[in-house]
């Protein structure tokens, strides 16, 4: 069998157009930017420049010339050879720059229209690969099409989520408003893409083509699209992104690795928020010595270089000493305290609450807490194995604890600052006059009113936790060296980076797109919540 190319036999028809659109986009984008910088416009209020209709004709011709110029640069390299494409892109940049500085006459409107139409053309052509790939064999639509076919569950889930959300967006509060902002929608799409891929890929094993840990002899260090040697009936016939140094499938590892990131990063952020909120609210509300002490502690953790902390905390020797387990015992108690105090302060006067609901709730949450922190064979085996609901492997626990530990002081500072700001408001005074207890005021008056900035920070912080997880993996700390998570994979792949690009680049781009999605989502949320 032959190697799979990126775009398959379909590429012969679409690639030239795709390159044209891409190069046109580059030229126009640079021209637009160059024009934007080169002309010191006065404020539009004072000397408005009317869109010059007379110049539309020449503009179109100049656009065409630019386009042809970029074509001549690209024509010899019509085959999708990466090295040459980069050179032609650079050529486009130079041409566009010169054009942008030279052609003052083109109206900005037209240039921007050209930029966008080139962009949409390129995007549309790219989508053709993905869509056609859904229905044809891998050989026809190439690697892109084959990947798109593997991702069918994700596409369906994404489409359903977006269709439903857009249809019902008026009734969905802040989440629904997100669908009014393009930035927020792109961000949400990226995040949901990885959430669904993690769910179907790592959870139900519908996407990955091979075992992420399975090694096939003869597949070591292969380029993308390599056919599987000695493929049995029922095996997927290709390594879509090639094989890594241990002859494992890069594509499947990236997919399964997303499961680790998508679970640990948000969960660690939730715990960090629980810790930060439970300590930050009283620090801001009561002030005084409690505040001084907690602030000193949080500043101390923040003064620690993060990487040094990781190196000290996440080593096999420290895991052996049981320190992360003790830290887990302390940090994980905060969610239990938070939920208990929140429920108690709100419902304590209701009949049956203190005698029935509250004890049951308390017992369940304490049980969950104990199952989480205790593990047979470590220093902390509080529960007999029979009652232990789930086991967290100690190397995952230590990674989790250190990410929570690094993030919670920042959350503490944010919550404390917000509380200081809000506690002088009238509704707080009203609650005080009503005779509400301090914890009721903190958790049911102040906290809901500062949720906006907290939600935005939550999104950003998941991204940051993802980066931290990657950092840990990059230094080979914590998770096992064969774990498919992105950071570890980047670390493993970077040694042969100059020859085999795919093993480190695939997880690198995956991580980047997830964090980018979270940042865009936070940006969209911030914009929409400010609009109220």
């Amino acid at each position, binding site marked *: 069998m032959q190697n799979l190319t990126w775009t398959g036999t379909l590429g012969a028809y679409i690639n030239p157009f795709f390159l044209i659109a891409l190069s046109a986009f580059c030229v126009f984008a640079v021209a*637009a*930017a160059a024009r*934007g*910088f080169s002309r*010191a*416009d*006065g*404020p539009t*209020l*004072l000397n408005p420049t009317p869109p010059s209709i007379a110049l539309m004709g020449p503009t179109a011709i100049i656009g065409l010339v630019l386009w042809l110029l970029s074509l001549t640069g690209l024509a010899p390299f019509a085959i999708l050879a*990466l*090295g040459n494409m*980069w050179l032609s892109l650079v050529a486009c940049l130079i041409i566009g720059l010169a054009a942008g500085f030279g052609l003052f006459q083109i109206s900005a409107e037209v240039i*921007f229209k050209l930029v966008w139409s080139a962009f949409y053309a390129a995007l549309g052509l790219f989508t053709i690969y993905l869509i056609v790939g859904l229905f044809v064999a891998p050989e026809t639509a190439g690697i892109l099409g084959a990947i798109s076919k593997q991702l069918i569950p994700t596409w369906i889930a994404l489409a359903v989520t977006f269709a439903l959300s857009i249809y019902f967006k008026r009734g969905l509060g802040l989440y629904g408003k997100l669908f009014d902002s393009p*930035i927020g929608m792109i961000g949400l799409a990226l995040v949901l893409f990885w959430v669904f891929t993690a769910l179907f890929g790592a959870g139900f094993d519908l996407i990955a083509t091979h075992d992420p840990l399975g090694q096939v002899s003869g597949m070591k260090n292969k380029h993308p699209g390599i056919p599987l040697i000695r493929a049995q009936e029922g095996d997927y016939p290709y390594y879509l992104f090639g094989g890594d140094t241990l002859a494992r499938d890069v594509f499947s590892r990236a997919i399964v690795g997303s499961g680790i990131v998508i679970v640990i990063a948000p969960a660690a952020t939730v715990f960090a928020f629980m810790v930060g909120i439970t300590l930050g609210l009283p620090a801001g509300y009561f002030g005084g010595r409690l505040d001084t002490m907690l602030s*000193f502690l949080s*500043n*101390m953790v*923040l*003064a*620690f*270089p*993060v*990487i*040094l902390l990781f*190196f*000290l*905390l996440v*080593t096999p*020797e*420290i895991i*052996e*000493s049981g*320190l992360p387990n003790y830290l887990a015992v302390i940090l994980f108690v905060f969610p239990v305290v938070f939920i208990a105090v929140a429920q108690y302060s709100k419902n304590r006067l209701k009949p049956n609450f203190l005698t029935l609901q509250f004890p049951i709730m308390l017992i369940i949450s304490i049980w969950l807490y104990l199952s989480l922190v205790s593990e047979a064979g470590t220093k902390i085996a509080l529960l007999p194995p029979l009652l232990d609901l789930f086991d967290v492997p100690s190397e995952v626990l230590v990674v989790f604890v250190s990410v929570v530990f690094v993030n919670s002081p920042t959350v503490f500072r944010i919550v404390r600052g917000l509380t200081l700001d809000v506690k002088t408001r009238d509704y707080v005074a009203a609650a005080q006059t009503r005779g509400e207890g301090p914890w009721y005021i903190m958790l049911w008056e102040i906290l809901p009113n500062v949720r906006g900035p907290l939600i935005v920070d939550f999104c950003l912080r998941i*991204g940051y936790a993802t*980066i931290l997880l*990657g*950092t840990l993996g*990059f*230094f080979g700390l914590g998770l096992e060296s064969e774990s498919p998570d992105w*950071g570890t994979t*980047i670390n493993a*792949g*970077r040694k042969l*980076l*100059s*020859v*085999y*690009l795919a093993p*480190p*680049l695939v997880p*690198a*781009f995956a*991580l*980047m797109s997830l*964090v*980018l999605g979270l*940042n*865009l989502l936070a*940006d969209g949320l911030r914009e929409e919540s400010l609009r109220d």
Partner: protein
Amino acid sequence: MGMFILRRTGVMLLTALCLTFIVFIMTNLYPNLEKLAKNEGNFRMSDAEVASFLSNRGYTQGKLHNYGEWLGVLPGYVIEGVDGKTRGRCSNHGAILENANEYCGVLQGHWGFSSRFKEPVSQIVVTRLGLTGKLMFWVLMVMIPSALVIGVFAGMREGSRLDRSLSSGAILTTATPEYVSGVIFIAIFTSSAVGLKWFKGSATSAMDHATLENFLLPVLTIALYGMGYIARMTRASMAEVMTAQYIRTARLKGVSFANIVLKHALRNALIAPFTVIMLQIPWLLNGVVIVEVLFNFKGFGWVLVQAASNNDIDLLLAVSVVGVVVVLLTQLISDIGYVFLNPRIRIS
């Protein structure tokens, strides 16, 4: 003001004291000491040999006592080991001192001896900090001007197309951690698979002789990640200033837009970014560690990784002191600088 600086310095000392104590305790946990002993001696030592190795070198005297010795408030140990040799803290790596009962800790300027590099810690830290200083200098030279320019251009007309595209670019760079952008840069510009080979994938030669070829990629990698954040802060600050009354007055008077931006708005808009830049410096430390490992540039970050993975206690303590001082010093400078730049704020 003097009082303020004094108090902050006091807090700084206290924090450094607490943190070094924590580092000390963590590096002196028994499993870590065992690793150290096996690294120093040989890997097939029995448990009893490890124990005698450690007690010969004063590691088992009690943590508080050892910390006091490191700090220089307790006299250094002198122990006659079971192997018959006499070892003293102050004389471990030279002749035994006459008055062996001497204080030799940080307070006396004695930072200890690195077990990994077999060199005095102070010497290692100074040379490596110099190398990292070179890297940081160029990072700041690239990062600050470009971040400010991007931020000012984006913020001067909020919501314009220029703003949109620059802001999106800024978000993209903040979403790309150093180990991702570094790997991408190495793949594109140095690998034989792409074939450009414009730069070098290793910055080891930049330690003696930095050129564009071997130093641009590491500098760019660190600078990009920090740049987005500073640019966004500058943009926000610039956008706020541009809506101020006095800017509108200047516009109505007919001042040209370039003059408004450069002469009226810029100065006020740069107050907030100054604080952000100072607070960003400790974060650059992370990037420095990653990039120095990725590009094999043997500076301070590389030393940190070496010290931590070999449990080199004295070196780790010195590294954490430097780290803490950098963090707290930049905070102090940002607070003081803020007062000077913004006369409306008084520190009481």
